């Protein structure tokens, strides 16, 4: 088990539990009461820790090395999954995966960022940072879904789109922009769920949908707290403050009306009970699909665009003379 810094009190309790269990195995003393007591203690402690998480702690949780990733969820939720590769122009991006799946009888197209489980795998997946071909593969799969009238489900988990030289050459910006443009008009339902990190353009590049949800311990922001700290505070040391200032948690995002709901995680986070998490996620997606699939495509698209049109906070000042006809300044 991997314990995060704020989970340290739990770590020592787990150590004690382990030791007592060992003693118990020797069969001399009956330790069942002590085990029960400790387990209760762990439960209370965990509840306490997890009910008061700061923004930065949620960022850490979203990056927990044991947290489940896209392919895990797809395989848990669906009996059949056929992964499809390649953008048909350049190559197959390993940081975005997708394919056809069967969700209890409903055919769907899954798309999601994919991170790696160990060092080698992480490199293979480029840490979940997609190149333009990843976004183009995603778009190809969405178009496939549209042609065969399958809903699209996007699972978001990225520290950002890859900022590399080749990514720029092949048009990282164009690839993301094109996806936003096309997703707005896609004739099938789109459900997006942030399952880990939702960093900026890299996240929203597969994140425009009829319904967008966040798992409880995830974040969604225009920039990572680290980069924000380095730019606005001119130092890497203010990531905690930046995480607070950015108001990037699911609670904030829901309160601001920028997402449509929060999906609860099991106590201790998605990584504590990944199978349970997959079940909750599946139930949630299925419920949303029932509603969306029944809608007329034109109505759905209009509703989708209207939802995004409303996003923004600004004030209005009284009209001034500047709104009248201006003449050329010479």
């Amino acid at each position, binding site marked *: 088990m991997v314990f995060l810094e704020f989970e340290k009190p739990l770590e020592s309790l787990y150590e004690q539990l382990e030791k007592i269990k060992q003693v118990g195995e020797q069969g001399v003393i009956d330790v069942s009461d002590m085990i029960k007591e400790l387990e209760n203690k762990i439960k209370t402690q965990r509840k306490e820790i997890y009910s008061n998480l700061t923004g930065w702690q949620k960022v850490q949780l979203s990056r927990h090395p044991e947290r489940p990733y896209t392919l895990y969820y797809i395989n848990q939720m669906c009996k059949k999954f056929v992964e499809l590769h390649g953008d048909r122009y350049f190559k197959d991006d390993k940081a975005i995966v997708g394919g056809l799946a069967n969700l209890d009888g409903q055919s769907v197209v899954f798309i999601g960022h994919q991170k790696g489980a160990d060092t080698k795998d992480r490199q293979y997946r480029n840490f979940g940072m997609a190149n333009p071909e990843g976004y183009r593969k995603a778009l190809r799969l969405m178009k496939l879904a549209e042609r065969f009238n399958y809903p699209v489900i996007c699972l978001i988990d990225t520290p950002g*789109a890859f*900022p*590399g*030289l080749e*990514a*720029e050459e*092949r*048009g*990282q*910006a*164009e690839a*993301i*922009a*094109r996806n*936003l*443009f*096309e997703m*707005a*008009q896609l004739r099938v339902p789109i459900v997006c769920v942030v399952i880990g990190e939702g960093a*900026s*353009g890299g996240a*929203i590049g597969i*994140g*425009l949908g009829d319904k967008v949800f966040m798992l409880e311990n995830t974040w*969604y*922001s*225009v*920039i990572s707290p680290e980069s*924000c700290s380095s*730019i*606005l*505070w*001119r130092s890497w040391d203010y990531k905690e*403050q*930046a995480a607070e*200032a*950015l*108001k*990037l948690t699911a609670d904030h995002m829901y309160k*601001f009306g*920028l997402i449509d709901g929060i999906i609860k995680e099991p106590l201790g986070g998605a990584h504590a009970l990944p199978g349970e998490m997959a079940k909750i996620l599946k139930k949630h997606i299925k419920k949303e699909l029932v509603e969306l699939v029944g809608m007329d495509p034109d109505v759905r698209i209009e509703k*989708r*665009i209207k939802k*995004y*049109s409303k*996003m*923004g*906070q*600004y*004030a*209005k*000042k009284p009209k001034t003379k*500047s*709104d*009248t*006809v*201006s*003449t*050329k*300044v010479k």
Partner: protein
Amino acid sequence: MGWFKRLKDGIVTSTKDKKEAPDGLWYKCARCKEATTIKELRENYHKCPKCNYHVRIGSYDYFDLLFDGKYQEHFSELVSKDFLKFKDLKPYDTRLEAAKDKTGLDDAIVVAEGKISRKPIVIAAMDFSFIGGSMGSVVGEKIAKSIDYCLKNNIPFMIISKSGGARMMESAFSLMQMAKTSAKLSQLSKAGIPYFSMMTDPTTGGVTASFAMLGDINFAEPEALIGFAGPRVIKETIKKDLPEGFQTSEFLLEHGFLDFIVDRSELKTRLGDLLSFFHTKTA
């Protein structure tokens, strides 16, 4: 024989050590360091007469360069507010006030309607001087409102981008403006109304990754910095020096992301030509 004999002929102070001339009279080119009078610069479309460097100019400068005389500003009542109470080294509120005082502008974009070669057009032009031309809710909303206006009145739309990207101080609200503007542009496209995107120095981040790259016609001024990630970030990522000319307009043209590069002195004529190809209302 004098005590003050000049040892070398001519001026020996190198140009870069030259003292600044007072503002308002002279302009010292940011690239070749040559000085020109402001009047000369203005007459030369705000380009350095010596090296053709396209000086960064503001929204109203573009309106003056492009429109046939009069133009009407739209949606100027929209102003940013510090909804998140965002505070880094300074509160966002203070930054907004400072930017307003410094620039005399209300935000990083101004929308105006006028005519180019007697054909109507709505132009949304960004101002880099206002918090780095960053895109927050106001930029997104003004673009969205412009698109609705163009849809209603069947007028071509153009955005002149000049921006460092999304405005961090509006966090996810600024991120969502990418989705908002792109979604609105898809409506314009569906209605068959042309949208021209012009990128100027610099156009990066969330602005490039949304409306700037979505023009029916995409073009740029010469030698502008255009990209998704900033050059410094890329350099840190790949731990190598970037090739010469990386992320310039010329680089983007070569890689297939621009239709053409246009010199500022030819911009108005080129836009007139473009507009003549699209069937919309005429004057």
